[in-house]
Every structure is written in C-alpha cells, then in structure tokens.
C-alpha cells in the first residue's frame, strides 16, 4: 500500500530530509507492505490543509507545525509559549510533559502521533542594538499570529502583520524593524542586508509533528506498525540532531553575513522572562486544567 505524505516545507529543509529518510526506512522495513511517498513544498496539500486532510483520510499520513492550530485549541500552542522552555533540553522536557495530552487530543481527531521534531530556537532580530525592554518601545515588530501580536504589545513594540514570504522586503523597506524567529528564517531570507542584531533568547522551540490517520493505522498489520514506530523513533532522534546542527550552522551564517549574534543582556533576559510568565499565565487561562497539568509537570522535572 502506498501512503502519500504531504509536507509543508521545501525539499531541502531538514524536516523534509528527516521525513524522506523516515519514508525510506518504512518502505524498506516493511518490505514494501507500506510504501511512503513524501510530497514536500506543500505540493500535495498546503500546510494549513494537512491536518484536516489526514484526519478525513484524504492523505493517510502527514506533517504539520501543530501550533498553527492553536486557534482551534489552545493546547496545540503549548510549545509556542514565549520564554517557558528556552533550550533544547527544556523543550524536550516540555514535550515529554505534554505528549500524553497532545496524543489524547489528536486521538479524538482520528489522528495517531508518530514523531515530533523541533525547529531551531526562536531569537529576537533587531535593526539596532537593544539592551532592555524599555528600548524596544515603538519599534515596528513583525507579528504573524495572536501570540506574536501579544508579545509586541507587552514589550511596547508596534505589531505589523507580515507573511513569511514577504519578510526580507519588509525589512529592506522599513515596514518592519524587528521580529522573533529562528536563526534559519533570517539565514534563508538574508536579513543581514537590513538587520544588525540577533539575540539568542531561545524564546521557544516549535515542533513539526508527523501523524497518521487512526483508522488507516489500525488497519495496518501489527508487524508493519512496529516497523513504522521504530522508524519514527529513529527519525525523531535524527531530526533532533539535525535541528541542533542546523542551529549552529545558521547562526554562523548570520555572523558571516555581518550580524551581531549573541545572548541578550542580563537585564533584557530577566525582563523577557517576566513577560514570558505573563504570557504563560494567559495561555494557562485559555488551555484550562489540561494546560496547567502540562506546565506543572514540566516545572516539576
């Protein structure tokens, strides 16, 4: 049986590379009983359509940035709370704490989780040097969802909505002067042409999730399911490794482009942490008891 696997990011992205290896592992491991064909770059379904497509069996398996669905349920945004888990290790802990809830939530939607791989940590890009939150006041800040708009509000910056495809142009023309994103975004968009500073605040590490339609999953032989789960473990491990490698690579790229890359000042870090607490509390209100359980479990570790 062939499983077409829609993926949202370009074939050269490390998530897509991980997915392609996973597909090959499954195809070989099951002796062709399940053959996975990846379709990167949103060539089958666009990113926003992938979850629903898998949910309804239009595609058996797919990959999606799950925090994209936080309008639907705040729980999906657990990995995108600013300054809650600010390192690969913390992000791992947070994921372990949240996994049961997310699996349960996905199960209700006819989805079975296979593996999750983080993006490089999110840092702050600025045109000029910034050493405290007070200095951010009035700076035009790229927002792309409600959380980033709220972050702008709390830091006194002016949110401007800019789609991913328009980032480099927006900075070049001064439509925006700051953003929060991973090092890879800035590297891909060559933002050093207009921005000078990247602060490694590691605000959060969003994840891509690979999930399969539960009915199709249950209809697959146990032997195949075991192989697929094994391949998923390998993919998760390899993906994590790649994410770390890629973080270093892109930050070096930003440096080579002429940007100042480094940690934020102590004062700024402390102030951002406070804003993070505010936003964590707001998220907890939206996500209810289940959300509280996740954060408590994470903090207890």
């Amino acid at each position, binding site marked *: 049986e062939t499983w077409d696997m829609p993926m949202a990011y370009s074939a050269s992205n490390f998530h897509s590379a991980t997915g392609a290896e996973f597909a090959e592992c499954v195809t070989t491991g099951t002796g062709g009983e399940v053959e996975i064909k990846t379709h990167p770059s949103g060539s089958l379904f666009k990113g*926003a359509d992938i979850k*629903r497509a898998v949910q*309804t069996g239009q595609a058996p398996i797919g990959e999606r940035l799950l925090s994209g669905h936080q309008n639907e349920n705040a729980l999906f945004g657990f990995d995108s709370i600013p300054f809650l888990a600010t390192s690969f290790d913390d992000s791992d802990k947070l994921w372990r704490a949240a996994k049961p809830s997310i699996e349960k939530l996905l199960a209700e*939607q006819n989805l079975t989780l296979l593996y999750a791989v983080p993006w490089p940590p999110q840092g702050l890009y600025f045109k000029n040097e910034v050493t405290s939150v007070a200095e951010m006041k009035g700076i035009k800040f790229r927002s792309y969802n409600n959380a980033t708009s709220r972050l702008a509000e709390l830091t006194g910056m002016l949110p401007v909505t800019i789609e991913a495809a328009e980032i480099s142009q927006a900075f070049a023309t001064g439509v925006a002067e700051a953003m929060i994103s991973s090092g890879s975004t800035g590297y891909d968009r060559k933002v050093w042409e207009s921005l000078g500073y990247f602060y490694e605040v590691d605000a959060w590490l969003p994840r891509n999730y690979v999930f399969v339609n539960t009915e199709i999953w249950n209809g697959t032989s146990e032997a195949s399911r075991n192989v697929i789960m094994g391949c998923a473990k390998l993919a998760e491990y390899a993906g994590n490794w790649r994410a770390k490698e890629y973080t270093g690579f892109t930050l070096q790229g930003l440096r080579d482009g002429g940007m100042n890359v480094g940690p934020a000042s102590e004062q700024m870090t402390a102030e951002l942490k406070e804003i993070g607490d505010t936003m964590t509390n707001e998220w907890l209100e939206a996500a209810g008891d289940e959300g509280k359980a996740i954060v408590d479990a994470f903090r207890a570790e």
Partner: protein
Amino acid sequence: MTVLRGLRSGLDFLYLAAGVLAALCLIAILGLIVVQMLARWTGEVFPGAPDYAGYAMAAASFLAFANALNRGSHIRVSILLNAVPEGFRRVLEIWCFGIGTAVMWYFTYYAYRFVYWSWKFNDVSQGQDRTPLWIPQSVMLFGGAVLAVALTDHLIHVIFRGDHRITRDLDDQSHAE
C-alpha cells in the same frame, strides 16, 4: 405555464443576484486592500485583512460562475462545435452540458459535506482573523450550487428546445487574455 414562467424569472433573478453579490465582493476586496494600506501607513493594525480578502475572492468567483456562464465568459474550445452540422452540434452540446452538470452537482454535494464537516469539526481559520471556516465556505457551496442549477437549466433547454440560452459576447470573453 404561469408556473414555468415564474420559475424562469425566478432562476434568472437568482443568476443575476448572485452575480451582483459577486461584484459587491470585488468592491469589498478593494476596500480591504485600501484599509489595510491605510492601517500600515498610520501604524495601526488590521489583523486578518488578507484572510478576509481571500474569503471575498472565493465568494466573488463562485457567486459569479453562473452569471459568467450565461454571458458566455467561460472559455471552451469550440472548433468542433462550430465545424459540425446542426443536428450533431445539439448532441455535442447535450454532452458538454451533461458533463458540466454532473461535475458541478458532484462538486455541490461534496461542498455540502465539506462545509458540514468544517462546522462539525469547529474548523477555525489559522490566521489572525479566527473566522469559523464554515461561514465563508458556505458562500462557495451556494455559488457552486447556483452554477449547477444554471448548467442543468441550459441542459434541459438544449434537450427540449434545441439550443442553450447562453448569449455569447466575444468582446467580454476576450478581456482575460
């Protein structure tokens, strides 16, 4: 006969009304673009403007499909249709309208399911507009259904009257190229 005449004018009103709504959607798109620009220049935010413009785009297209069909705006390859004798042309037109009718009723049925599931799943937009998607999608369903009705209307006409009711305006059609 009065029933038929009433049906006739009712249908014609439906196609026209949907077309006028579509035109209003174009004006809405213009308004949204302008407001978004103004917001950007004045440092304000208008969250979700691109999403709303996208919904208006879909609405403008689907609501206008039937009107565009009736005015001959939709492109088709008419070499064969023009080359064959009258009697065969009628058969060919029945085939074309038959295919079109089948495709659009199929579309309409699945559009109904699509909207139903969006509502059932509580599917909300992933953009900053947070719109429940069944609302804009219902407009697509409605527009698709109107086109299906229009195609059926023409099909019945070709079968019983020998010709469809499309008034072709070449000038109108060619403005897309």
